[in-house]
């Protein structure tokens, strides 16, 4: 292959972008080579979308310069629009138009006509597997199919550079793999691809990775370069109880520790053996955490302050043949599972699988079509107000009152959960101390950094010391460090007897759960502990499967 000495297709030169006082990107300089898949990685708020929009010539840099294929994004924006493909984060498909109508629209807009158009459509439709759905309204496609359609529209005119902003978020793992295959095929044809993602495991598949955090570029190079640094520093230690995690994390020589099924994954400061630890291959995430300074230490004060949950129900939550239909569409199809007291149960599945719908039925927010969902033996739809005092709920995207200050949010939620007078004051003060809200007390919630929003969401959900916590995608988009802190709190609460039921599409996060229910297209595929599920997917080619591998394996009908 040529490459090495070839001219870079994208040059970014001392790029800075500010929005008012906030600096979204700071002094970025990088050259990106042609024909490769370049991963743009980092948590929400790192600046990935801003960078991509700048590359797409849809924003002006505050200072610095970007050239693509020799064209400057400021002065020659038109030429750039004619040679790139851009798929925004929320790709705006025209939901009122059919698949074919969307494709035709983009073909017309990009000047792909006649014979060429026929060929391209055929290719794209088979590529994406959408041929049988041409007449369906785009709004009625599943999440994965929508992404594929979005990609198809972007690819109608073969671009030189393809910019993809988080194309795989929430998409089911099978579709995600298919998307990757498609992209790899395109790269082989010489198209340069920039793929932005929050999933660190995707970064490993790219030929090159740009790691962004808070507007700064922390790393630029092949992912292996980063992971190799961690050789000999990663171990799996068997876990007896959750408290072990806290103990290990607080050790001097440990950089990071997370739960992985029945083990604890430990990353050490230097390359030396770890007691009782089995050495394993390092992952990109290990390197990322190391680069950012390691996992937060200390114990969860939240858990310390929480009272022990005293009740002797064995099964706190029971779901039997739960079904939900919206007209003809069955969102949840006869699901059954049970959650034990003091357990963390996870509903794991891609967007649109039915997790939120199940959750909402459990919480009494949606009417059940058939079946039963009970908490402590009672259905929440009919539950008197007092019964709800035992439940805490953290909705997607944290659902805080954005215009109200942190303090006002805390006051409201505590008041609504019947905390008054002294009790209320104490509860609020505790939260402020545990989560460090002091500097942000009067700031409107919507202006908080994402990590603080999550903390506020959690605080508001637990002030009344609920016995059961419902967490709906509680860590969406948050950076890995804050995520660890969060799970620290959760694990601590569970030690005290709180029962937790959580939904997520982050396969790796599900490792924290005691048991997982894999849910796909409205049905439960299987239920079991993370390790059990992984074991089921063990094959010769893949002796050490991840949860994602297990998910795909099980969904495709094996085991």
């Amino acid at each position, binding site marked *: 292959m040529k490459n090495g000495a070839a001219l870079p297709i994208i040059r970014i030169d001392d790029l800075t972008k500010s929005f008012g006082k906030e600096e979204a990107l700071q002094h970025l300089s990088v050259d990106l080579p042609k024909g490769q898949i370049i991963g743009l990685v980092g948590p929400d708020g790192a600046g990935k979308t801003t960078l991509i929009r700048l590359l797409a010539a*849809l*924003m002006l840099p505050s200072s610095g310069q970007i050239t693509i294929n020799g064209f400057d994004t400021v002065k020659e924006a038109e030429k750039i629009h004619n040679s790139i493909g851009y798929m925004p*984060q929320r790709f*705006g498909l025209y939901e*009122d138009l059919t698949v074919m109508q969307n494709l035709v629209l983009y073909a017309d*807009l990009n000047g792909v006509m006649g014979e060429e158009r026929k060929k391209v459509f055929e290719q794209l439709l088979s590529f994406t597997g959408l041929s049988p759905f041409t007449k369906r309204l785009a709004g009625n496609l599943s999440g994965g199919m929508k992404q594929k359609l979005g990609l198809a529209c972007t690819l109608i005119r073969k671009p030189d550079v393809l910019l993809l902003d988080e194309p795989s978020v929430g998409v089911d793992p099978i579709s995600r793999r298919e998307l990757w295959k498609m992209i790899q095929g395109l790269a082989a044809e010489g198209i340069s691809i920039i793929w932005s993602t929050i999933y660190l495991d995707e970064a490993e598949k790219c030929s090159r990775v740009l790691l962004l955090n808070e507007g700064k570029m922390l790393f630029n190079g092949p992912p292996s370069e980063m992971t190799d640094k961690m050789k000999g520093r990663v171990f799996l230690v068997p876990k007896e109880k959750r408290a072990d995690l806290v103990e290990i994390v607080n050790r001097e020589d440990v950089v990071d520790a997370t739960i992985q099924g029945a083990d604890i994954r430990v990353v050490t400061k230097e390359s030396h053996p770890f007691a009782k630890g089995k050495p394993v291959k390092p992952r990109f995430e290990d390197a990322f955490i190391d680069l950012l300074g390691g996992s937060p230490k200390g114990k969860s004060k939240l858990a310390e302050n929480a009272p022990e949950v005293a009740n002797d129900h064995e099964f706190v939550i029971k779901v039997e043949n739960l079904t939900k239909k919206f007209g003809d569409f069955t969102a949840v199809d006869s699901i059954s599972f049970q959650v034990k007291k003091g357990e963390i149960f996870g509903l794991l599945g891609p967007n649109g699988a039915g997790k939120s719908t199940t959750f909402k039925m459990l919480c009494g927010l949606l009417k059940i079509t058939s079946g039963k969902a009970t908490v402590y033996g009672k259905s929440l739809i009919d539950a008197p107000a007092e019964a709800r005092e035992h439940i805490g709920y953290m909705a997607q995207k944290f659902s805080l009152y954005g215009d109200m200050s942190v303090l006002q949010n805390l006051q409201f939620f505590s008041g609504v959960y019947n905390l008054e007078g002294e009790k209320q004051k104490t509860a609020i003060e505790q939260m402020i101390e545990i989560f460090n809200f002091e500097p942000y007390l009067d700031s409107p919630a919507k202006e908080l950094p994402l990590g603080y929003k999550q903390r506020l969401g959690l605080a508001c959900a637990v002030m009344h010391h609920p016995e059961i916590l419902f967490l709906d995608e509680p860590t969406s988009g948050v950076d890995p460090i804050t995520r660890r802190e969060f799970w620290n709190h959760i694990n601590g609460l569970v030690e005290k007897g709180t029962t937790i039921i959580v939904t997520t599409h982050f396969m790796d996060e599900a490792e924290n759960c005691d048991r997982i229910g894999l849910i796909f297209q409205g049905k439960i595929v299987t239920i079991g502990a993370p390790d059990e599920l992984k074991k089921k997917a063990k094959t010769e080619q893949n002796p050490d499967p991840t949860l994602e591998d297990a998910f795909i394996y099980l969904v495709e009908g094996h085991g």
Partner: protein
Amino acid sequence: MVNPRRLKALIVKEFHQIVRDVSSILICVVLPTVLLILYGFGVSLDFKNMKIGLVMEDTAPDAQSFVKALVDSRYFNVDIGRDRKRIEQDVVDGKLLGMVVIPSYFSQFRERTDKIAPIQVIADGTNPNTASFVQNYVDAAFEGWLQQQYYESGWRGQLLIDPQIRYWFNESLDSRYFILPGSLAITMTLIGALLTALVIAREWERGTMESLMATSVTSSEIMLGKLLSYFILGMVSFILSIFFTIFAFGVPLRGSLLALMLSGAVFLFTALGLGLLISTLAKNQFVASQAALNAAFLPSYMLSGFLFEISSMPVPIQWMTYAIPARYFVSCLQTLFLAGNIWPLILKNIAIMFGIALIFYAILVKKMVKRLD
């Protein structure tokens, strides 16, 4: 600059969306129809069967024929009573719009040559407009009655001068004939400003605008695509409203359909410009709808002259009305329906509307950049 193929694609897309979107249909079809019915029947300044009281404190044989004239009048529904207090209370309670009193000294005065015998006409002044009509119609009945008396008794006086009153353009004095044409301006404003404002803001919110911008399409094409699509929709709605007005309500169209179309097209062009401008600046449906209601709809209702006479407003407010396109359109509409093709008036109004449109579009072009920041 503008590629016809891309433009056509955008227009086709727009129509696909319109067909499937409830709010478009609501605003373009349902609302105009409902409003037309309301304006046609509900908004009327034609007074008939006005309830008034009549107190005869004196039997006054002289005035009996006048009383009869009032009772027979189609404008009035007369409640004759002897008890003045009760009738007065009815006026206060709002049951009667006024009362006519033949006072106790009426016949006395009639017998004296140096006095004029009065008949009191008391109107409930709460609504000055209604009160004026009560007075005017009683007055007209009185005048008619006097004419009769003249032949019999030789009275003259105020009858010396005979005013011949002619109403041009709306001889039957049906208030609907002037309210309905004017109301078309309101419905066109709804479509032009409100609908467009929402539709573009929606593209921003749903993210489709961002995807469009990354293609070769230019921002002028995007605007033109919306403009043409809603122009077509608006004209269709306009034509339907015109036919409804003419055939369901019988309003005459004395001018030419062509002139009507022309002024409608220019007004729609202006209203769309306003709508596009609002939505480009607002980017958010909530703000867009607020702005459209306040900046487009309310002024066209209150300040366009369709119901409330502009010359009667205080001068500073009259100046404000010069900036409102609906004002010019209302004038065209009322003229074309009731008078005919008065070209100097029509052309002048069209020119001004066009000028305002150009201002909107100039600002629009400046603000429309294919950028996200």
